[in-house]
């Protein structure tokens, strides 16, 4: 923003004498780039704090690299929330354009306080009592909701089944379109809402279903009711499902530090750079999770081995057409992490693994 003169004033008197030509005000000049660089700090949460859980870290890395939605399922205390809180620390740094978009939304709600340009990806974790209006935005004079405030960042929904059904369902359309349109009789407002959904849940109301070490088992009815709170269409929109198991004592007590966020972020940024290169001529798509069907066909060409593998998986697990697309997108991200040109069978196989909730008979 070069040609704009912006004056900061703190008193009416200053404004008056400026207009009368008695005093001059110094223009506020700010170097966005410098500001942006300065703020690219990273938070106190680091993946090196998490012991064990390597598969889940891998899954988070994939999610961060491709901007995929992810759900963590596991018993209480397994570390779901801990893992999710550390996700922002491995996300690739924001581009200036993204920072401007996000700051704009926060500016409209008056949430930009002293930090100026928001250059750290937002991490929003609303409590599960949130209303649907607060989540997607609305009101007589529509204000952006949590999903818009999480634009270009992470929306973390802890204890997903505890959210009101209505609130979750209104998120379905924004999850697909990456923007939300709020219509009123006189006008419609569109807020951008391109966020990464991270959800966590217990597998059953008591929390211990599927835990090999627990004796408490819920009744099928209880389970049915609990899982029924999350609709199929919503689960379908989540690319990665992963089960979190409690960490055994040996790993917890292990003094060796795990891989740090900085190292993971390095890999993620590289994979993201590869995606930016791929979609550089496209204004709407920036990373794999945003790919349209046509782009998927284009960039995720399968060889014979992988397409027969996928066919088998589709039939066995009775996956939907949307799940098929999701698998391809995730496979593309895995290939990007490996710097592979084409998607091959091993990528597909790993991506299929992450659809555990689609599996028939998951509920026992």
């Amino acid at each position: 923003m070069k040609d704009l003169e912006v004056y900061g004033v703190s008193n009416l008197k200053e404004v008056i004498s400026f207009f009368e030509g008695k005093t001059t005000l110094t223009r506020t000049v700010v170097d966005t780039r410098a500001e942006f660089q300065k703020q690219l700090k990273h938070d106190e949460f680091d993946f090196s704090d998490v012991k064990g859980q390597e598969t889940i870290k891998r899954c988070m890395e994939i999610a961060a690299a491709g901007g995929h939605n992810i759900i963590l399922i596991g018993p209480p205390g397994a570390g779901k929330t801990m893992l999710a809180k550390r996700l922002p620390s491995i996300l690739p740094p924001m581009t200036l354009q993204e920072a401007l978009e996000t700051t704009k939304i926060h500016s409209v709600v008056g949430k930009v306080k002293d930090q100026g340009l928001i250059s750290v990806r937002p991490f929003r974790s609303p409590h599960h009592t949130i209303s649907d209006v607060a989540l997607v935005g609305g009101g007589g004079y529509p204000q952006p909701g949590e999903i818009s405030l999480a634009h270009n960042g992470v929306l973390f929904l802890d204890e997903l089944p505890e959210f009101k059904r209505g609130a979750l369902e209104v998120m379905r359309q924004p999850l697909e379109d990456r923007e939300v349109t709020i219509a009123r009789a006189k006008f419609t407002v569109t807020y951008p809402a391109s966020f990464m959904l991270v959800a966590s849940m217990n597998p059953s109301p008591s929390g211990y279903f599927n835990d090999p070490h627990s004796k408490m088992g819920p009744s099928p009815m209880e389970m049915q009711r609990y899982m029924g709170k999350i609709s199929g269409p919503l689960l379908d929109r989540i690319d990665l499902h992963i089960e979190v198991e409690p960490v055994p004592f040996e790993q917890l007590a292990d003094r060796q530090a795990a891989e740090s966020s900085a190292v993971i972020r390095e890999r993620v940024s590289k994979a993201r750079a590869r995606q930016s290169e791929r979609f550089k001529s496209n204004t709407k798509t920036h990373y794999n999770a945003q790919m349209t069907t046509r782009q998927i066909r284009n960039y995720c060409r399968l060889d014979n081995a992988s397409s027969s593998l996928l066919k088998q998986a589709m039939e066995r697990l009775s996956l939907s057409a949307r799940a098929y697309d999701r698998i391809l997108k995730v496979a593309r991200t895995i290939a990007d992490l490996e710097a592979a040109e084409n998607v091959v069978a091993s990528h597909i196989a790993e991506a299929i693994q992450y659809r555990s909730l689609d599996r028939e008979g998951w509920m026992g």
Partner: protein
Amino acid sequence: MLISVYGSSVFAVEASLITIEVNIGKGIGYHLVGLPDNAVKESNYRIAAALNNINYKLPGKKITINMAPADVRKEGSAYDLPIAIGILGASSQIQAPELDRYIIMGELALDGGIRPIRGVLPIAIQALKMVLKDLFFPRKMLWRLLL
């Protein structure tokens, strides 16, 4: 005397230019038109007190303020500053030939101080597209407006 000042209204994440026309003529009264919401309507109390406290005054004449386009709802307290400047200009308490070069936005405190407002970034981006206008904002907001 009639004078125009520019402000900006933010709708969703887009800002649009608002022209604030202030006319001061014979008679008594204060009329604010152009679909203001309550926060905008209350501005006259803040403006009157603020002007008083810095030794200017709200003229005892017929003050008509029109915010155009008149069918767009104006909301929030950010119109205090442009209206106050408009009144001062229209009542010839200040001589300011260059008023129409600026977008002025800010909320007034009763002592004449200026408070932060919302939606500064969209306004700045919009102003940049229109090229001609410069901006006036509360200093507290001015943080790091990108230049």
